[in-house]
């Protein structure tokens, strides 16, 4: 459609054929991009001057973080394990619950259109809400502590794994499933023997990937009182004891690095 609005360039080939070349919409896109950038600069009060003059302030905190306060380490283990437990429990339970939901959301397994539509809607609704905000709401309902964080991670995992899983199920090879259905197996039996083997490696790898990201998210959930290492992070930032903050961040980086490497290794083996 938009091509017709722009005049097309005509070229005459040596054999007198006319060829139309599509005009690039690049200049138009650039113009819109520049306009949006300009507007955003106005709205957010972006100024290079401030950055150049005051960027040294950014490094003041980093300087205070180094060297980290090693004596603080002994207090860190418990919250750090809390964080890992929160993300582990939420991820495992969420990944298990995502399986039946994605079965209901896949149009080739569930024939009722209303059920698939509502399941997909719920999944995308859960996915839109940022984890931190879900955790904030959960602290109001379940009280402060790791419970709220676990709920937030659980909900996010359902949404994330569920979406990727139902897309997988919908693109699966249906022949074996249909054969088994015609032999008289129930939907769940046929799903177990025809579709599960096809999606299992991907399902496990998605769940692992989600767990990996959840550890990272869980580290900040304490900021709203949902337990874990974020609680200490918030406290140390509030007291401006940046040496402690440095220690917490160092521990976080190490933990995330170890978990990422392990899960990357496992995911490569799965594929």
């Amino acid at each position: 459609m938009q091509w017709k609005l722009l005049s097309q360039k005509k070229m005459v080939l040596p054999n007198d054929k006319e060829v139309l070349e599509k005009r690039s919409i690049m200049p138009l896109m650039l113009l819109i991009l520049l306009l949006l950038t300009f507007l955003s600069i106005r709205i957010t009060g972006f100024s290079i001057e401030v950055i150049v003059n005051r960027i040294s302030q950014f490094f003041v905190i980093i300087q205070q973080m180094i060297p980290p306060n090693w004596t603080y380490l002994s207090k860190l283990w418990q919250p750090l394990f809390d964080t890992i437990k929160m993300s582990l429990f939420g991820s495992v339970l969420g990944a298990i619950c995502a399986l039946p939901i994605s079965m209901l959301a896949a149009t080739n397994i569930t024939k009722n259109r209303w059920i698939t539509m509502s399941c997909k809607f719920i999944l995308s609704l859960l996915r839109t809400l940022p984890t931190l905000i879900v955790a904030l709401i959960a602290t109001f309902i379940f009280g402060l502590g790791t419970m709220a964080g676990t709920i937030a991670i659980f909900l996010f995992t359902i949404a994330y794994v569920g979406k990727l899983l139902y897309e997988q199920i919908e693109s699966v090879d249906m022949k074996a499933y249909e054969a088994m259905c015609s032999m008289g197996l129930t939907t769940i039996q046929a799903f177990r023997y025809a579709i599960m083997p096809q999606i299992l490696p991907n399902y496990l790898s998605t769940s692992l990937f989600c767990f990996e990201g959840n550890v990272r998210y869980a580290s900040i959930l304490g900021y709203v009182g949902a337990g874990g290492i974020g609680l200490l992070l918030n406290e140390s930032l509030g007291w401006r004891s940046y040496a402690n903050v440095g220690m917490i961040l160092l521990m976080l980086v190490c933990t995330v690095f170890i978990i990422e490497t392990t899960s990357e290794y496992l995911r490569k083996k799965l594929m």
Partner: protein
Amino acid sequence: MNAIDKQLQLQPNRRMSYIMTIFILSILFVWSVSTIHFENVSLNGTKIAKNILVGLLNPDWSLIFNVSTGGIPYLLIETMAIAFLGTIVGALLAIPLAFLSASNIMPKPIAFVVRLLLIIIRTIPAIVYGLMFIRVTGPGPFAGVLTMSLTSIGMLSKLYVDVIEDLDKSVLESMEAIGCTLMEKIRFGIWPQLTALLLSIVIYRFDMNLRDATVLGLVGAGGIGAPLIFAMNAYKWSEVGAILLGLILLILVVEFVSNRIRTKLVRG
């Protein structure tokens, strides 16, 4: 023994590895059960849950249609502006870092150090950057923009490197064979291959930044997060409902549009 049984016997026996996996998983699972506890559940938890639902169903419409700087439309636009500008600055800054961390261009030690730096940048939570940048710029959306650009760099430069390494070199060779100059090779050989993929990556990151930008408000770095947490702490559930409704709508629309653009870009 008939043919079917024989085929069945040929199947590798994975029972042991299944049992081990499930065993390890259940040990880890039981270990982490301690995070679940119900003693902290406040008695009025269900009441609050009901209030939130009622607030979502009866949002404060005056807030939604308020066009001043305190209204939801302006806050959403501000959040989008933070995410947009943050993505653009991050996308530009990621280009040199991508080349620095590509191990087939740079010497090994430099590439390794830059990669380590990128991992560290990616791991530190955005909220910490937010607090650091507030010292630089003072509270407000500007701090949010700087935070977003810094957090975008890590992922963007990693994905850039993947795209650059996957370039189709045979096109360049054939262009050289018909005698193209270096500039022509870049303009017609490399540029068309890169733009669509890079643009698609940047749009994807914008989608993610929009979600993260809603959270930055919690530390005072602008956007819709701050009004949300204020309304929650004041138990004004109809305001919370209105803000959440606006947020959900915005994210759904942006996700839909960005998915459409990305499929179009990738498929050409």
